[in-house]
């Protein structure tokens, strides 16, 4: 009836595990209690959970990401603490627990923090940047969100019922096979990743079609903002790389549950094929994480240098080159698995080549700043920190790209430092910059500047303290994932790294404070016009927050930096003689139902509750069939309703304080006057 689920699944074997479970359970209950007290369930259901609006879906994605950032960070600071004290001692974390923590840290940060973060940002902004009203497939979009949430929920449930994987975030067999990991941990990993992976694949398909087919008239590909270009390439990678992890996850699960021999040691299995298939996904994955950040940096550098992007065409080609090349380098993740020199060198050379287009981008951004009128907005500070720090990480990557060097550095803390150097200053700072840039667009008020700066400095100082010592430790021979060690020379560096983690803890606290303070002061921070930073691209044309339909009249695009051009011509805020009816997709519980069923399906599969697995599979099939047979998916927003919304919008613009003329972009004659009808 309950498969292999018994009362022993509760984490009563250790105080720390029990503590983690209690925090998870009480945290969830506390949130639900607050919502109940505010009587907000109906509101949340109607306005958010069943919404198919890309802006709402995007906000929910980012919210999930921020929650999982806190969860994944707790793993990190637990590990840093353990490593700082565990010289010739057991520390406070037993090995099996430590192993679960490094496995969940990586899994959460990649799949449930970074992926939802970038997907959310792309969701909120890209349809607006291309002058569209929504994505091509709003129902699929909702389903993708809830599939991702289902995967995250599975990882969170593993804190309370059962254990998580101890096989690392990449789950290599034979350790991750049934013989050496007979428990539920690896199964939790597999199902969380498979379910979230379906969500990402569908998001990729959605945005490929959206960007190719739903651009406003005149928005040729070479007039799209860079963020949309990077989103497009990211979508291509998502759609075409995620099938690889779907395959490898399914095959591993077949080995574990049905005793098959894909990756077993013997019986004709080939465990090296796992590494091969995993990294065919894994390398494009890291480019999925970084390309949106590159697009964000392009948006930030132009907006806050008050200048158009230098070398737009080269940036587009560099992005495309990175996307294509990202499929050709995957073996560099397993140089040491035993390939011959010709294979290793070929992939090593390809890895060095892929660094070149990124270098082109860095120069393009620097030249954009040159002779611009720079505003040191928090986003701009993240950009500058990124350029300096990411380059350091990039060159360590080129070092690792040399197979002979990698033989020494593989799986050392040098590698750990390298990839965190890419992910934190590269991807995460980009997402933080995006939050500071686009928060007013999403919510209608800006984020508090002071707390943003405090958070920024803690993150930057914290990053350097936490990860630069790891480069040194790598050279000193320290392997990754060590639960305890006996080399005294390592400890000082690990203590410094721990201090860095504490700085980052404050960075996170200040981030939360920033949001709280901004909400409290939202009236003073209000964005009345929709264009708080003198932006250049179309998302700044909409109101903040935008109307459900984004644009009452779809913009006609005549050049790059379409909004900037419209402001220069004085056509940005023209109102039509007459508004038209607008067809909008109806809200639907479809996405949430499929996501909820997927969560139960995954949980049941982990615990071998086969009747429940079958029931959920059937229920998902029926739900999909019902949705696929339904024709009543849209409603009409009448012209009168549209006009009322637009009237309110223009009335708000008239209430805006006079614009700060110091920051009017170069080349615009006079200040834009919000609310004027030309």
């Amino acid at each position, binding site marked *: 009836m309950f498969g292999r689920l018994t009362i022993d699944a509760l984490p009563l074997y250790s105080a720390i595990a029990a503590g983690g479970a209690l925090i998870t359970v009480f945290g969830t209950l506390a949130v639900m209690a607050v919502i109940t007290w505010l009587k907000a369930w109906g509101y949340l259901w109607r306005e958010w959970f069943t919404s198919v609006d890309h802006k709402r879906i995007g906000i929910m994605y980012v919210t999930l990401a921020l929650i999982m950032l806190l969860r994944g960070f707790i793993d990190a600071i637990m590990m840093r603490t353990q490593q700082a004290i565990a010289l010739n001692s057991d520390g406070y974390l037993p090995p099996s627990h430590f192993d679960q923590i490094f496995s969940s840290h990586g899994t959460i940060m990649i799949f449930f923090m970074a992926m939802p973060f970038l997907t959310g940002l792309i969701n909120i902004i890209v349809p607006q940047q291309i002058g569209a009203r929504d994505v091509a497939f709003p129902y699929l979009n909702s389903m993708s969100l809830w599939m991702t949430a289902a995967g995250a929920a599975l990882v969170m449930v593993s804190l309370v019922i059962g254990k998580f994987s101890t096989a690392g975030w990449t789950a290599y067999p034979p350790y991750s096979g049934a013989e050496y990991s007979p428990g539920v941990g690896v199964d939790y990993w597999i199902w969380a990743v498979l379910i979230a992976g379906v969500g990402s694949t569908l998001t990729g398909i959605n945005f490929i079609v959206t960007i190719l087919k739903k651009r406003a008239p005149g928005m040729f590909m070479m007039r799209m903002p860079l963020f949309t270009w990077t989103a497009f390439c990211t979508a291509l990678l998502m759609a075409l790389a995620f099938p*690889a992890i779907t395959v490898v996850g399914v095959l591993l699960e077949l080995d574990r549950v049905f005793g098959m021999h894909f990756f077993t040691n013997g019986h004709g299995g080939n465990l*090296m094929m796992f590494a091969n298939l995993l990294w065919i996904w894994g390398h494009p994955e890291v480019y999925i994480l970084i390309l949106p950040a590159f697009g964000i940096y392009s948006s930030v550098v132009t907006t806050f240098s008050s200048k158009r992007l230098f070398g737009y065409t080269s940036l587009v080609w560099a992005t495309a080159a990175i996307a294509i090349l990202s499929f050709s380098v995957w073996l560099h993740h397993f140089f040491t698995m035993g390939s011959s020199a010709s294979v290793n060198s070929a992939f090593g050379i390809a890895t060095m080549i892929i660094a070149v287009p990124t270098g082109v981008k860095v120069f393009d951004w620097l030249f954009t700043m040159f002779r611009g009128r720079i505003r040191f907005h928090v986003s701009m500070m993240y950009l500058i920190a990124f350029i300096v720090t990411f380059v350091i990480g990039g060159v360590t990557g080129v070092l690792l790209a040399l197979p002979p060097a990698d033989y020494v550095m593989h799986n050392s803390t040098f590698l750990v430092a390298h990839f965190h150097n890419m992910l934190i200053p590269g991807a995460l700072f980009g997402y933080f910059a995006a939050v500071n840039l686009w928060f007013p667009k999403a919510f209608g008020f800006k984020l508090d500047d002071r707390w943003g700066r405090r958070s920024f400095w803690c993150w930057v100082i914290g990053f350097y303290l936490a990860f630069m010592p790891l480069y040194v430790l790598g050279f000193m021979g320290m392997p990754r994932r060590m639960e305890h060690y006996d080399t005294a020379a390592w400890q000082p560096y690990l203590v410094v790294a721990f201090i860095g983690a504490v700085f980052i803890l404050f960075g996170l606290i200040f981030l939360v404070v920033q949001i709280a303070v901004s909400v409290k002061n939202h009236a003073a921070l209000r964005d009345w016009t929709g264009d708080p930073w003198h932006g250049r691209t179309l998302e700044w044309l909409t109101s903040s927050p935008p109307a459900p339909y984004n644009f009452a009249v779809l913009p006609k695009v005549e050049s790059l930096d379409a909004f900037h051009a419209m402001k220069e011509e004085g056509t940005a805020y023209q109102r039509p003689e007459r508004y038209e009816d607008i067809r909008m997709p109806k809200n639907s519980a479809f996405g949430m139902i499929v996501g909820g069923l997927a969560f139960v399906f995954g949980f049941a599969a982990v615990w071998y509750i086969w009747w429940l697995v079958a029931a959920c599979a059937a229920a998902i099939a029926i739900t999909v069939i019902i949705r696929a047979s339904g024709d009543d998916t849209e409603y009409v927003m009448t012209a009168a309703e549209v006009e009322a919304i637009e009237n309110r919008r223009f009335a708000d613009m008239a209430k805006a304080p006079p614009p700060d003329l110091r920051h009017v972009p170069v080349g615009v004659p006079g200040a834009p006057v919000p609310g004027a009808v030309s």
Partner: protein
Amino acid sequence: MQDAAPSETRDLRSYLTGFVLALVLTAIPFGLVYFDLLSVGPAIAIIAVAAVIQVVVHLRFFLHIDFKRTPRDDLLALAFAGFLIFIMVGGSLWIMIDLYYRMMI
């Protein structure tokens, strides 16, 4: 994929031609293996060539992929996916065969 009114590419002839060609391109490899007509090397070559041609036949006569009429985005999607599949599968085989010789697995 346009759902235009029946045109040259979409009439009965297209499907029937495709069927007959596919039948022949199936019978040849099956026949030469079943009746043991060739040694392994040349047999594999003929199987491969027949398969590739039959895939093209399916694309042309059943899926109506046509350089002139199919939308460009569809052709590019197919070409890009095909290119990536070539790299992924080709690369995997190169890597795994190389590992087989080096690591005897």
